[in-house]
């Protein structure tokens, strides 16, 4: 078998130890999943293919898989995409389980008409596709020729009105690519089965709506995406989680967003530490604060290490009752947990009424050693 772990008789348990004497190739047909070649007159393939790729995955990231679609745009040969697919995902005959290669004439036509185009940009024709390896059409072994109706463009292309193929990413990208400009016509969102962002001309895939990533200018694609109850809050992926579970140091949203941005150093008040707990803002009482907690806070915020810490008296007459969090008695028994999990609410306020204020400084980074620069001072 080609791969190191093979099934003993092309159907037995995988990963059996390969018997070196057994060089039978485990051929089986598999459905074509390479998007480039989903519009072929056949839909089963087998590997390795004619370019030495061992799987469709490998084929999909090969450089031929990006070379050929780009070459198709030049219009050098009408059936170039068809020929490329017979190499990338060769036809598999479901009865014989054998690969059906392209005919030699198809290979020759593609090579003769398109090789020179590659030469202009200093590229070679893929060497694995030497035409002499393919059977002559009309000989006794079957081979593939484009039937009527074979599409010159792949599903990854946009077909210009003139018949030319241009990469789908060029459709309505603001640049004219088709010789008849048809790639820049009918560019309305709905005409392209896209969703138009309210208040702007931006078009997005419908799959991007409420996916947790803002795409529209006013983030409207991520608004009104969840209907949480009063005592719940929406996660970034629009799940609903009870507000008492927010910023408790444990993930409740499947994307862990209930534990994001729970700790901050509010610049306006001179980097006073603020912690959000059950969706409300708290100050941290300085009474039992210590250096390890300062280190944890700076590291958790990705701000490096503590530069200075001070206990700031609470501002008198602050409107509304200030909320306090206190250092949990077992704060150091909860390793690898976030700061918000090491603090607790208490019935009483903070005795000293002093809040934690912290300044962090970036850890050493981006410095090069001078080691070896001047190791040997040789007089010249």
């Amino acid at each position, binding site marked *: 078998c080609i791969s190191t772990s093979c099934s003993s008789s092309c159907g037995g348990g995988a990963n059996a130890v390969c018997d070196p004497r057994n060089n039978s190739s485990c051929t089986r047909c598999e459905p074509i999943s390479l998007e480039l070649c989903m519009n072929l007159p056949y839909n089963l393939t087998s590997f390795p293919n004619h370019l030495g790729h061992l*799987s469709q*995955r*490998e084929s*999909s*990231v090969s*450089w031929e898989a990006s070379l050929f679609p*780009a070459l198709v*745009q030049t219009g050098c040969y009408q059936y170039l995409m068809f020929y490329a697919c017979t190499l990338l995902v060769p036809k598999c005959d479901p009865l014989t389980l054998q690969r059906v290669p392209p005919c030699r004439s198809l290979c020759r036509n593609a090579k003769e008409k398109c090789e020179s185009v590659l030469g*202009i*940009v*200093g*590229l070679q024709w893929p060497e694995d596709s030497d035409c002499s390896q393919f059977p002559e059409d009309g000989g006794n072994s079957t081979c593939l020729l484009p039937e009527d109706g074979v599409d010159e463009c792949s599903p*990854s292309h946009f077909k210009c009105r003139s018949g030319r193929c241009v*990469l789908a*990413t*060029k459709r309505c*990208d603001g*640049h004219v*690519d088709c010789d008849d400009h048809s790639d820049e016509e009918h560019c309305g969102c709905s005409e392209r089965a896209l969703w138009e962002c309210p208040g702007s001309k931006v078009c997005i895939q419908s799959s991007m709506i409420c996916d947790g*990533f803002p795409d529209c200018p006013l983030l409207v694609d991520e608004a009104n995406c969840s209907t949480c109850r009063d005592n719940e809050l929406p996660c970034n992926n629009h799940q609903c989680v009870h507000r008492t579970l927010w910023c408790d*140091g*444990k*993930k409740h949203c499947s994307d*862990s967003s209930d*534990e*994001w941005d729970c700790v901050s150093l509010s610049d306006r008040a001179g980097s006073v530490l603020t912690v959000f707990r059950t969706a409300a803002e708290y100050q941290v009482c300085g009474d039992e604060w210590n250096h390890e907690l300062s280190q944890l806070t700076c*590291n*958790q915020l*990705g701000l490096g290490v503590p530069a200075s810490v001070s206990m700031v008296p609470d501002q008198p007459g602050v409107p509304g009752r200030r909320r306090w969090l206190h250092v949990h008695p077992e704060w150091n028994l909860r390793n*690898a*947990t*976030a700061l918000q999990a090491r603090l607790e609410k208490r019935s009483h306020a903070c005795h000293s009424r002093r809040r934690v204020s912290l300044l962090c400084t*970036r*850890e*050493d*980074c*981006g*410095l*090069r*050693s001078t*080691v*070896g*620069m001047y190791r040997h001072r040789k007089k010249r």
Partner: protein
Amino acid sequence: ILGGRVSRQGAWPWQCSLQSGQSGHVCGCVLIGRKWALTVAHCFEGRESADLWKVVLGLNNLDHPGLHSQTRGVRSILVHPRYNRAVVDYDISVVQLDAEIDETPFVRPVCLPGAGQLPSPDTYCYITGWGHMGNRMPFKLQEGEVRIISFSQCQSYFDMKTITPRMLCAGYDAGTVDSCMGDSGGPLVCEDASGRWTLFGLTSWGSVCFSKVLGPGVYSNVTHFTPWIRRQIYVHTYLTN
């Protein structure tokens, strides 16, 4: 690296080599913390499992790791959820090492950019890697000086692809100094007045570097991803429950 030169041992202590099984060096990567590195998402195409990979740091000669090198396994690979293979967008991954590195003059993290911090066009920065040199793969780490190219000018080089805000361009019209296959995931770093180096790009894609197709290289724009990177580190350090 095309048009570069052999780098001095210890010159780029954040450069690492992402290696897999028999293939050996596959991609570059960049150390950003004691247990964290960055690389590009496309390096993991078809090989997404963390236990297939290891990270080698403190290397200069791929063939002779030497005394200063450190090797770590990969605990987790965090590919950006928006990585788009077709247009090579959001091409970035955070790599969690299975153990902390020992900081030495030859193994040190690079700085991440601050919010909105970008190198200005025509700034000269460096790219490094063990990628193709146009005629062969090197053993010794190569370095090349490239110029940051503005977004609009960069789009003019690539009519086949769209340059998105997640991308950064650097190089030269004639492609004389450029990154190439095997450099992917490696750093584009710029030095500030205080002598500190900041990571602004990860080698991602470009024209076929050993052809006559000219133009700059395209790098993942690290500044765009810094909040996402910090969040991945926070979640995988403090929310492991």
